[in-house]
């Protein structure tokens, strides 16, 4: 900034240097606000929560964090209840990602060929993805309602006492285990299959027609064309869709919270829901919740790594 004081009398060389410095300054000016913001709201909490994971601390207590080493981690990993939540999350992730992949792929194959109204249809299919998850949760909660909900009506159950109560895991008054979990899975599939469809569709459009034409001339059956041409060509994009959805499934919170709040009992208590409960509801066990958050993070990184490795292997081959 001192350069600016004698700005009026500058040789051309100095002016050039000044312009160079000014470019630098502009670069810094653009980058630093973003970096500061990222450090303040991303990096700092990340490392602070890592530290808190090793302490006994409650955000609402008038008490400084007390270092307890790995106690939080060992507590969580020795807690049978926590293992159950992990298992529920695993089940949820497997079911919802699996179904989304199948349905998304099928939808993509369906709207792949241009026909009258295919553009409109594609847009319509994409709508669920664009609605806020909390809103989707509330909508479906109403639709699942056994007395006035649309869901039972469409299934043909008009009498609430003989039909299913999805979110209460009951059918005609009897308990059906995991029905509520499946209800949540169904909504997640409804909401996110379009996402898989979108990615697969872009993969399908990139497959050149002449491959199919060559196969047709070579007398390959359509089944064979699907397995040998379509699937391998789309696989990398499909895998990315699956990766994104798996990460999201492990973090699933808003939808479940909006629909069941983890219930009935703890049937839909996914790990993220439980994390929220430990961190902010009643107990405010900030230290333990931070440790749990890190365990989830490690699981997600591990799973992603598996996918990415497989993806790279596949890319290397083709």
């Amino acid at each position, binding site marked *: 900034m001192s350069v600016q004081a004698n700005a009026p009398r500058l040789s051309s060389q100095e002016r050039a240097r000044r312009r160079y410095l000014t470019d630098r300054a502009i670069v810094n000016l653009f980058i630093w606000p973003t970096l500061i913001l990222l450090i303040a709201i991303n990096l700092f909490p990340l490392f602070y929560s890592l530290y808190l994971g090793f302490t006994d601390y409650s955000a609402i207590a008038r008490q400084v964090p007390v270092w307890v080493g790995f106690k939080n981690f060992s507590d969580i990993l020795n807690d049978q209840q926590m293992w159950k939540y992990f298992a529920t999350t695993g089940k949820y992730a497997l079911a919802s990602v699996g179904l989304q992949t199948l349905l998304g792929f099928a939808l993509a194959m369906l709207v792949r060929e241009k026909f009258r109204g295919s553009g409109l249809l594609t847009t319509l299919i994409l709508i669920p993805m664009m609605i806020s998850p909390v809103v989707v949760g509330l909508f479906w909660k109403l639709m699942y309602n056994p007395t006035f909900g649309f869901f039972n009506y469409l299934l043909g159950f008009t009498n609430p006492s003989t039909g299913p109560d999805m979110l209460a895991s009951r059918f005609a008054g009897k308990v059906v285990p995991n029905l509520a979990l499946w209800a949540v899975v169904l909504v997640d599939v409804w909401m996110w299959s379009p996402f898989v469809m979108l990615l697969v569709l872009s993969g399908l459009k990139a497959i050149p027609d002449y491959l199919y034409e*060559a196969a047709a*001339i070579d007398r390959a059956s359509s089944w064979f064309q699907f397995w040998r041409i379509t699937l391998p060509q789309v696989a990398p994009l499909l895998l990315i869709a699956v990766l994104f959805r798996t990460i999201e499934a492990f973090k699933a919170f808003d939808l479940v919270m909006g629909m069941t709040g983890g219930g009935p009992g703890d049937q839909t208590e996914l790990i993220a829901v439980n994390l929220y409960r430990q961190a902010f509801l009643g107990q405010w066990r900030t230290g333990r919740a931070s440790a749990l958050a890190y365990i989830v993070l490690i699981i997600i990184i591990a799973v992603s790594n598996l996918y990415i490795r497989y993806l790279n292997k596949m890319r290397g081959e083709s």
Partner: protein
Amino acid sequence: MSHVELSNIVKRFPGVTALKGISFDVRDGEFFVLLGPTGAGKTTTLRIIAGLTKQDEGTIRFDGESVDALTPAERDTAFVFQQYSLYPTMTVFDNLAFPLRAPSRRLPEDEIRKRVEVTAEKLRISHLLDRKTAHLSGGEMQRVSIGRAIVREPRIFLMDEPLSNLDAKLREALRVELQHLQKVEGSTTLFVTHDQIEALTMADRIAVLDLGRIRQIGTPEDIYDRPADTFVAQLVGTPRINLFPARRENNHLYIEGSELHLPAPTLDLPERFTLGIRPEDITPSPDGAFAGTLQITEPLGVETILHIRSGERTLQSLIPGMTDLRIGDTVRFDLVQDRLHCFDLDGKRIN
């Protein structure tokens, strides 16, 4: 192998009629070339024969029987695409074996292996059999896709500019190999190209196609020595044929805008017409009957192109070897009188 016959094929696309009544036949064992500029309808013709596109009118017969109702698989053709079209996730071996493994053929695996190996040997790609196709060079890929065509015995080979994505050296080498292969196997081949050299060197017969119409069908000699119209005359031969507006007066031919005139050949020439002279038929010699000024020389090594100015006209002359003529020199030359081409004002050849 079989005799393939197209009669009156018409194909319309939205806004354009790609083929306006195409008829020709490819005889058993013949190397037939479809030559034409971009947009002439060559690829469309090929795709219709393969069954990948349906014609709007006309019939295609293989050995006298209509195949119009048959699917591409049932027609039993082999198609070599311009863009290689190899199956990307498979090895070269699997690509070559692919057509043989079709459920309708049911060949035993050791028979397939034998046939693939023989084919690979012919195309000199035996060392590539275990490789994935994505790692091959362009020339290797095109060899594999030609291999995938010749590994079985189709009724006709359809080749859609298979050499045009290759660099010049490779194109030349593969052209010779293809020609050799076709002669040895005696396979019926329909080869599409926009490259007149490919057409002239490889073909038994050529059909020149332009804007969905056939201009001429004939042997390379017919096409070159007796072009049916100015379009064909200009399409084949490098450098291009010299075309000048000319008129007939008192048994003499005059080239408009130039001093050149010569005794009229014994033809029934109209008063005004177009005169065509191949560059190699303009032969410089010290006591030549005509004169002009040398404007440019293009030495190519084996031969040299001379641009000779006469009045407003520039004639291109092709001479063997190099020349010691200088730009600006006066050049005397002769015309090979019995090789002059005359076309009427619509471009049709006058015989």
